[in-house]
């Protein structure tokens, strides 16, 4: 990140020096800073609205309800995790949080899930020994599949994008939601098919 940011700024200034656009750079830097603040004001409204709504859903037990509904899906995706293992809980919480755009709730649950999956991995390594597909520092099929599905980013409401669009003069900021849901579903389906095609090698 450090290099990316520094690179953007340094390349920009050097390029401007050679193309006589240095004055534009000054205005752009100042204007962008101001713009970021205006954008945050719009975001304050949208994010507060969304997180407020999600708080109601959480307190009323709706999020927990969806997590329960996800159980059969988890059995299909991760058949090798013992049925009552706590990892299931964390995996479900992470997925539900992602779907509802609750990044702050998704990451801790996801990290917890990884921790539990690693414990399972260590148990297997101890019991069956290590080999080409199983080692203490090697990802298990569950870890790979979980991350691939997580990265495919199934999401219902892209709150941030809607806020940005509203700020930048979109007549209908939420217009993109339908296609976005369709596209993210395609991505997640591709992820699931991919995971199911990779044979299970190190788990049993």
């Amino acid at each position, binding site marked *: 990140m450090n290099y990316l940011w520094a690179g953007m700024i340094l390349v920009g200034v050097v390029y401007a020096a050679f*193309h006589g656009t240095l004055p534009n750079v000054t205005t*752009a*830097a100042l204007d962008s800073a101001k713009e970021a603040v205006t954008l945050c004001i719009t975001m304050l409204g949208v994010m507060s609205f969304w997180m407020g709504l999600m708080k109601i859903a959480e307190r009323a*037990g709706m999020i927990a309800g969806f997590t329960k509904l996800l159980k059969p899906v988890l059995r299909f995706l991760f058949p090798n995790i013992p049925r009552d293992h706590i990892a299931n809980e964390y995996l479900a919480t992470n997925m539900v949080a992602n779907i509802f755009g609750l990044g702050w709730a998704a990451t801790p649950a996801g990290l917890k899930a990884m921790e539990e999956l690693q414990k399972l991995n260590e148990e297997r390594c101890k019991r069956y020994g290590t080999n080409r597909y199983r080692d203490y520092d090697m990802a298990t099929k569950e870890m790979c599949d979980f991350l691939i599905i997580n990265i495919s*980013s199934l999401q219902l409401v892209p709150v941030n994008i809607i806020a940005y669009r509203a700020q930048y003069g979109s007549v209908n900021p939420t217009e*993109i939601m*339908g296609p976005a849901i369709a596209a993210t579903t395609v991505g997640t389906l591709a992820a699931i098919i991919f995971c199911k095609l990779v044979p299970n090698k190190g788990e049993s």
Partner: protein
Amino acid sequence: MNLLLFVSEITIPLLVFGVVAYGITNRQPVYEDFITGAKDGMKTVFGIMPTLIGLMIAVGILRASGFLGYLTNLLSCLIPDVVFPSELLPLSIVKLFSSSASTGLLLDIYKEYGADSVLGKMASIMMSSTETVFYTMSVYFMSVSIKKSRYTLAGAMVATIAGLIASIYFTKFI
């Protein structure tokens, strides 16, 4: 009636109605809960504000210097627009590494072409349906000291590319 547009229109009202109705029938203090959540929301925004300022300045400089335009032209020579719009290529690549940096580029696209232009819509959909592959992988694997990630990257790229292609395709429907 266009189904995708219909989904766009009803999802939020439906969610708002559903959540509030569910909360009130379960005798929850919905108003207080909303306020608590809204406070968290404000904290989140204040938290990302410095990052947003930093990155928007960086992208602003790149755009004003003319480098971003140069890069787009260069990319459009390499990859014909029929396959993938060259204006959105930097955005898609940066998104693999950093969510905030790609936000900077997304806003730049809104400014250059308009949030409601085809490019603006396409970029919005792409950003909604892809995730920061490398960042997520390093955070999750590092937290449990896994060094060999096996096929995770391959799978994540398959999912991302499928999402990008689907984004281009579904943009046509609105």
